[in-house]
């Protein structure tokens, strides 16, 4: 399999008569874009904005992001989700580089929404602060869906429809730069067999988790995914199963640095066997069962090593650590990527459960480090939702710090509040230190 990604660098986004892409400028016809993204009619009161890196702009509540893709062969950018089902991971796809489509709303009914700051200290805390954001702010058309389990679902899908619509401007254009990835399952090339285990938050009957070709994976213990499928639209974003700092969006699946790096090593230093979407379970007895199942899967695949990404923190620590520890005891070498949960005062144990056999971990930061942020000139969304709605990382009262939202619009929040702050698919440039 060979996936060629033709990149188009986006320098600016503006609104105009005709949706088009020329000379690095993406022009968007607002009315047409809104109609295309809302073709299922699930949203209302939709407005479009542009937020640029450096702007005094705060996007809140941010719900999801998507990357713009276009398949010249006519296949849907997100097969099985926004169009008919087809295999992803082979052929040519076009990509807009330097921008994302960002879904935002007015309320956070599940507490798992987040913020993107385009400047100031908060701009260092989300990967999306560095991109041009084409932002839509909307509400669910049906108020009956303003409930936790449904709050973000249509926003995620609309972001993909919008990304696909914008991608069509690339038809008959010539990409500026190419990224090429080749991968075929290979039984033996003399190199260590490695797999990437991606732990989803896919608790059955809870919020929507990751979609696999449009199929909602909650409750599915494991799914083998070929590495190139990630970069070609097979996976689309979480509907809000995790706090905003740990949300995995369509954008992050399509651009995951860990997948790209492993593909670059394939055939040179490792034999990349596959990636596996693993899950976690809640009852404690089941945690050992499912960890054993993942060790069994690794042995069946003949793996020498595994890199596992933990979905977030808390009870998933147990599944994560049991899996890594079990793999190590079977002689399968492991590296874990995880975020620590040391509390706002930094004194809690980083993990609620640890296995002494686990000896190689990459730590991408703290889920609850406290930051103070200045007020912004522009808010896209609804800053007052901080006073009305539940959010991770934002509080109405604190005996020492006072409320998160102050009268002048400045904030004191913790890192849960920043979209995909944990950067576990490889974007994080943070680590943890002892003080």
């Amino acid at each position, binding site marked *: 399999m060979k996936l060629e990604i033709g990149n188009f660098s986006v320098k600016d986004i503006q609104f105009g008569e005709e949706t088009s892409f020329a000379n690095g400028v993406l022009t968007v016809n607002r009315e047409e874009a809104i109609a295309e993204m809302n073709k299922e009619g699930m949203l209302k009161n939709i407005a479009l904005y542009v937020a640029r890196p450096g702007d005094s702009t705060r996007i809140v509540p941010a719900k999801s992001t998507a990357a713009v893709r276009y398949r010249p062969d006519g296949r849907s950018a997100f097969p099985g989700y926004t169009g008919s089902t087809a295999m992803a991971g082979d052929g040519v796809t076009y990509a807009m580089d330097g921008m994302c489509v960002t879904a935002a709303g007015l309320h956070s009914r599940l*507490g*798992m929404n987040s913020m993107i700051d385009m400047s100031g200290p908060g701009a260092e805390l989300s990967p999306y602060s560095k991109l041009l954001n084409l932002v839509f702010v909307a509400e669910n058309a049906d108020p009956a869906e303003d409930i936790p389990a449904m709050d973000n679902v249509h926003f995620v899908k609309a972001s993909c429809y919008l990304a696909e619509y914008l991608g069509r401007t690339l038809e008959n254009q010539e990409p500026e730069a190419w990224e090429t990835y080749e991968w075929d399952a290979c039984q033996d090339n003399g190199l260590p067999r*490695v797999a990437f285990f991606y732990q989803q938050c896919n*608790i059955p*009957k809870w919020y929507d988790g990751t979609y696999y070709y449009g199929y909602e994976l909650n409750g599915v213990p494991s799914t083998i995914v070929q590495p190139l499928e990630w970069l070609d639209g097979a996976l689309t974003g979480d509907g809000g199963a995790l*706090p905003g700092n740990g949300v995995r969006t369509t954008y992050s699946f399509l651009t995951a*640095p*860990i997948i790209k*790096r*492993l593909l670059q*090593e394939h055939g040179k*230093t490792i034999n990349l066997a596959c990636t596996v979407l693993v899950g976690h379970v809640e009852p404690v007895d089941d945690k050992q069962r499912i960890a054993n199942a993942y060790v069994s899967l690794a042995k069946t695949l003949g793996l020498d*090593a595994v*890199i596992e990404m933990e979905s977030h923190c*808390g*009870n998933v620590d147990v599944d994560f650590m049991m899996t890594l520890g079990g793999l190590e005891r079977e002689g399968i*070498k492991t*590296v874990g*990527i995880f975020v*620590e949960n*040391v*509390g*706002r005062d*930094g*004194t*809690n*144990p*980083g*993990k609620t459960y*640890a296995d*002494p056999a*686990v000896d*190689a*971990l*990459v*730590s991408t*930061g*703290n889920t*609850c*480090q406290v930051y103070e942020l200045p007020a912004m000139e522009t808010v896209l969304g609804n800053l007052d939702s901080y006073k009305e709605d*539940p959010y*991770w*990382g934002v*509080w*109405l009262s*604190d*005996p020492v710090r006072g409320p998160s939202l102050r009268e002048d619009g400045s904030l004191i929040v*913790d*890192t*849960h509040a920043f979209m995909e702050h944990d950067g576990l*698919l*490889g974007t*994080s*440039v*943070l*680590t*943890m*230190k*002892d*003080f």
Partner: protein
Amino acid sequence: MKKIVVFVNQYFGQIGGEEMADIVPELREGLVGPANAMQALLKDAQITHTIICGDNYMASNTTAALDTIRGFLEGIPFDLLIAGPAFNAGRYGFSCGEVCKLVQEVFQRPAVTSMCETNPGVDLYRKNAYVVAGSASAAGMRKDMPKVMALVNKLLAGEELLGAEAEGYFPRGIRKEVPYEGGKNAADRAVDMLLAKLAGLPYVSEYKVEQEERVEPLPPIDVAGKRVAFMTTSGLVPIGNPDRIPSGSCTHYGKYFIGEQDELKSGEWISIHGGYNVSFAAENPMLLMPLDALRQHQKDGHFSYLYPYVYSLAGNQTAKGDAIRMADEILAEFRKDGIDAVIVGST
């Protein structure tokens, strides 16, 4: 100008050796012993006093010694205390640690000491003070002192610290996120770590799995005839969440009236916990507080009284400091109401 107090034992206080180890704490104005070398390395601060205490006296009369020292410090304006260095001396390490702990806990001011890593005081007190890694004996004083004083100068100036390793002190049990040196992303760090591990080359894990503190359960108690209360970290709240209890990282809790009810009804209670599927709790809130079972036990005479309120918060990601504070507040109310035993429901 910032003011500093120094603490030393009888030997470094130039009173005498082992034969003088029983002397009671003494407060002297100005510089004694190592305080002279410290003063020479201070940027913009003055050591105003030196406190001297015998090692044996501190070890065998700890409370009295600390009370006296506390009395001394209450009478002196100071910004920071330096204790030791204690090198590898066990009793001296204990003295320095106790005095530093007093300063940080009671006076809420930074305390700096120095010990050799094999000094038992390191593990006992590194969470209560900046314990700078030092030499095994006083022969290393000249080498250790600049490290200690560099940290003191930084703390006095309010400069941001670069972390325990960079500043040369033992980790205080506090972790913070910082930019990874050179800006290398987590994907490259993970793959490079794996390649090193596969090749048998050295690598540095960014987190070390350590044995964490464990709370040993106390032996069971007989509650027959006793007053019992129930509290929970499950996020149980009346529908509408009137106190706006957050779904995680709680800094406050709710206290809800149960009265004489025999059960919690669906539609009246929900959970706002952000860490598990709460739809089951909405269908049956007694998964979170088994009020029906509690009433049955009460009727069967297993205890006499059930507290008519439930205390509740979402227990996930609560900072340890907040957890201890809220537990103290709730405990004070239980004591006031004569509660003998508490059942804590988790999730």
